[in-house]
C-alpha cells in the first residue's frame, strides 16, 4: 500500500498540504501518509467535492456526483454514452460536449504535464476550436489546453478501431480515451475492460474510457461490460435559456441501487469568469468547461436541498 501511495504522491495526485510542506515535521507527514494509506484521506484539490475518492472522476456536476456510488465515474473502466438520432438511424450524434467536459475534468483531477487525450473515430472528434478553449481559462490542467495533448485517430474499420482503443488503454501516458463504440459486442467490451486493467498505472492514473454509442444499440439490443451506461438527448427546457440543454439519463450503474433510471437536465452554462474582460459575453459562453445541472435561475436564493433535487429530477 505504501509504495502505491508513494507513486501517487510523486505524481502530484495527492498533495501534501499546500504551501506549508517544508514546515511540516517528519512525524506529521508520516501520520498523514498513514491516514492516506488507510483510505481516510481526502484529495486536497480545490475542485474535488468532499469525500471524493481518487479512483473515480468527479463529473463536475454535483447532483450527478452525489448520486453515483463513489461520487464519480470509475477510472480504468468503460462508460457508455448513447447519443441521439437525427433523421433516421444512420445519422446519430455523440454527446461531444459532455465527453469533452469529462476529458477536461480528468486533466484537472491529476494536474501533471504528462497525459494524452485520445479521440478515436471521426464521429467523436470535437471541433479543435472547442478543445482549445477547454482548460485554458482557469490555467489549470497543467497550464496546457486539452487540444495540445489530444491525438485524433481515424481507424478505417471496426477491427482496427477496437485494436486502437486497446493499445491506448495499455499505454501509461494516456489519461482519457474517447472512442466511437458503435458495433462493439460483449466480447469487445470485455476485452477493453481487461486492457484497461492491464494498464501498469495505479488506478487513479488509469485512463477514463468513454465510448459513444448509437442509440439503436441501446440495451436490450446489445449488452456490454460497461460500468455505467448513459443516454443523452437534447431537450428544450420549460423555460428556454440562451444555452443548449441535454437530458442525461443514467440507465445502469454498477453498485448503485437502481430501481428505475434517473435523469438530469444539463445545461452548457457560460464560464463563470471570463478571462480578459470580466463581462459575460454570450459568445464566450460555449466552452464545455462549464456544464451544470439546470435547477433554476441562479439569482434566486437556493431552495432547500430536497426541493432542489425534486426539481432537478422532475424537470
Amino acid at each position, binding site marked *: 500500500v505504501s509504495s502505491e501511495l508513494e507513486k501517487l504522491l510523486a505524481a502530484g495526485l495527492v498533495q501534501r498540504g499546500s504551501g506549508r510542506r517544508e514546515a511540516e515535521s517528519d512525524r506529521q507527514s508520516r501520520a498523514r501518509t498513514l491516514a492516506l494509506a488507510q483510505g481516510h484521506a481526502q484529495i486536497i484539490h480545490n475542485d474535488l467535492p468532499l469525500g471524493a475518492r481518487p479512483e473515480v472522476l468527479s463529473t463536475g456536476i454535483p447532483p450527478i456526483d452525489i448520486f453515483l456510488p463513489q461520487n464519480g465515474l470509475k477510472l480504468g473502466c468503460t462508460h457508455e454514452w448513447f447519443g441521439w438520432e437525427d433523421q433516421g438511424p444512420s445519422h446519430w*450524434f455523440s454527446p461531444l460536449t459532455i465527453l469533452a467536459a469529462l476529458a477536461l475534468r480528468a486533466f484537472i483531477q491529476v494536474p501533471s504535464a504528462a497525459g494524452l487525450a485520445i479521440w478515436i473515430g471521426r464521429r467523436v472528434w470535437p471541433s479543435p476550436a472547442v478543445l482549445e478553449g477547454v482548460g*485554458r481559462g482557469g490555467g489549470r490542467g497543467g497550464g496546457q489546453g486539452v487540444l495540445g495533448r489530444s491525438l485524433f485517430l*481515424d481507424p478505417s474499420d471496426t477491427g482496427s478501431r477496437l485494436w486502437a482503443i486497446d493499445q491506448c488503454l495499455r499505454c501509461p501516458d494516456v489519461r482519457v480515451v474517447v472512442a466511437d463504440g458503435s458495433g462493439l459486442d460483449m466480447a469487445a467490451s470485455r476485452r477493453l475492460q481487461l486492457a484497461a486493467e492491464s494498464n501498469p498505472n495505479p488506478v487513479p492514473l488509469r485512463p477514463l474510457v468513454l465510448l459513444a454509442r448509437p442509440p439503436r444499440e441501446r440495451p436490450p439490443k446489445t449488452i456490454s461490460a460497461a460500468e455505467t451506461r448513459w443516454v443523452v438527448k437534447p431537450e428544450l427546457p420549460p423555460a428556454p435559456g440562451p444555452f443548449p440543454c441535454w437530458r442525461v439519463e443514467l440507465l445502469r450503474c454498477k453498485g448503485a441501487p437502481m430501481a428505475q433510471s434517473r435523469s438530469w437536465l444539463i445545461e452548457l452554462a457560460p464560464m463563470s469568469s471570463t478571462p480578459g474582460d470580466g463581462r459575460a459575453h454570450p459568445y464566450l459562453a460555449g466552452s464545455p468547461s462549464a456544464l451544470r445541472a439546470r435547477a433554476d435561475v441562479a439569482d434566486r436564493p437556493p431552495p432547500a436541498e430536497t426541493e432542489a433535487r425534486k426539481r432537478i429530477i422532475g424537470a
Partner: protein
Amino acid sequence: MGRESRQGQRKAVAHITPALLLVQTRANMQHIAACCRQSRAASVRPGMTLAQARAMIGGAVHVEEFEPGAEQAAMQRLACWAALRFSPIVSVDPCTLGEKISADDPLPDGIVMDITGCHRLFDRRGREHGEEALAGAILRPLGRAGFEARIGIGPSVGAAWAAARFGDRPVTTLPGNHLELRRALEPLPVRALRIDTQTVQALNELGIERIGQLIDLPRRMLPSRFGPLVVRRLDQALGTAIETIEPVRPRPPLRIERVFDGPTPQTEAIELCTRELLVELSGELLKRESGVRLLEAVFERIGRNGRGTEQLIERIALSRATRDPRHLWSLLRPRVEKLHLGYGIESITLAALRTGKLRHRQEKYLEDGKHEGNSAAERRKNARGGSPRYGDAAAPELRKGNTGGRHEGELIDTLANRLGPERVLRAEIVESHIPERAQRFTPALEAPRRPESSAPPPLSRPTLLLDRPEHAEAMALAPDRPPSLLRWRGEDRRIIAGFGPERLGGEWWRCHRDRLCELGVRPEPEAPGDAWERDYFRLCDEAGRWLWVYREMPLYRVQDVPDSASPRWFVHGIWT
C-alpha cells in the same frame, strides 16, 4: 599526378528580386556583413552601414541578421555532402578571397577536394568526359539548391584556388604540365596567390600586379621584403611545394548487414536474425549517443525466376528518436511476418536513415535495465523476450518528466505504423476567422507536441463542425434577423430561439476559386479573394437542438449566373 578542384561559392539570388544583405549590429550601427552579387554590382561592400547600402542599391532590399558561425556550419555540411558523393578527401577552404568582417571569423567561401582518380566514376558516355563530367555533376545539384558555384581544377590546391576565383568560365581547368601551368598563372593578379591584403597592397605599390612579374623577381629577395608567405604560396600554386588537405569526416548512415550462407526461406530464422540486428544497431546507436527516427530494413530475396535478387524494403518512421530494440521490433515484427519470402532471403540490411540525438540516461540503481540494458547480453535477452506490449514494460515511471514522453512516443509509433501515419493526427489552431480554416490536422509522427499557442481562446463554437457546410433553406421574417423556419436534411425545423448575427468577412487575400467552381464558372487567375461575407446565427429548434447556421452573402455578381448574388443559408455545426 594529383589534381585538385576548388569551387568558390556564393549564395545565388538571381531569382529573388530584392537584394540580399546580412547585417551585424555593432555599437548601435548596422554594418553589412555579407552581400549578394546584385548588391555587389551596386558597389556595396561588407563593412558599410546599412543605410549607406540601401541608398546605393535604391531598390528592394531584404535584410537578415548575420549569424556568426552559421556560414561555417553550412559549408561544413556542404563539404560532408561532397565527401559522400564525389571524393573522399574534402575540406572547407581555410583561405578566403576578399573582405573579412573581422580577422577571427572569415566567411568561408570555398571547398577544396582532391579528385585524383575520382572523375572516372562520372564519365557520361558520349557527352562529358573526365573532369568536366565531374564538374557538371557537382554544379547541377548545387544549382538546384540555389547556390551559384564556380569550379577550378588544377594540379595544385593553389592553382585550383586561383582558377576558381579568377578563371573566366564557371569551370576552369588548368593544365598539368609545369610550364603550361606557369604560363596559365602568369597573367593572373597577385591576389590569386592567397596572400593577405597588406602584402598585395605592398606589391601593387611597387608595380607588381601579375603573378608573372612576381615570378620574374629574384627569389632570394622576396622573403625579406614581403615575408615568407609569398614564396610559399607561389611554390604551392606552381606545385613545387606540398600542401595537404585535412578532410572532413562525414558519418554515413548507420548500416548493419547480415548475409546468409544461402537463401533462407524460414520465417523464424529471418525474425531471429532481424532481432539480433536490431540489438546490434541499438548498441551502435548507443555509442553514437543517438536514436533512430527512420529505420529501413532491406531484405534481399531470390528473384522470381530463381535468378538474381530483388529487394523488399520496409521503412518505419518514428515520432521521436529511440534505440530501444523491443520497441523497434514491435514495430518491425508485423512487417516481417507479412513478408513474402519466396525462394528465400539472401541478406538482411538495417539502416538508420535518419537519426536524432538521444542522450545517455542514468539508469536507476538495482533497477533491471529493461529499456537500455547495461550489457549486450542483457539487451539481446530483452529483444528476444516476449510481446511488444506496454503492460510488461517495467514499473511505471510516474514522476513528471521521468518518462520523457517515451510511452507517448511509442504509442504514436505503434498506432501510426498500423493505421497509417495520416490516420494519427494532432490538431492545432490556425489564425483565421473562417471556421473551417481555423484548425489544421497534422500527422502526429511528424509534428511533436507543440507549446501552446498564445492566441486568445476562440469564441463560442459548436462542438461538432460539419466537414463541409450543408446547404439549407431558411425563412427569415426580416433581413439580419435569425430565421424562423429552417429546412435542413429534408426536415422542416421551427426555430424558437436565435442569437446573432456574428459577421465574418471573407479573406480577400485568398483566391475564391472554390466558389466560382461551384457556380460552374472557370476561375480567372487574377480573381480576388473570398467574395462573400457570412452572418452566423445560433439557432435552437423546437426539439432543443442547437445549430450553427450562416447566411452567405456574395459580394458581387458573377456574370451569366443569375442567382450568384442572392444570399444562401448553410448549416455549419451542431452543439452535440
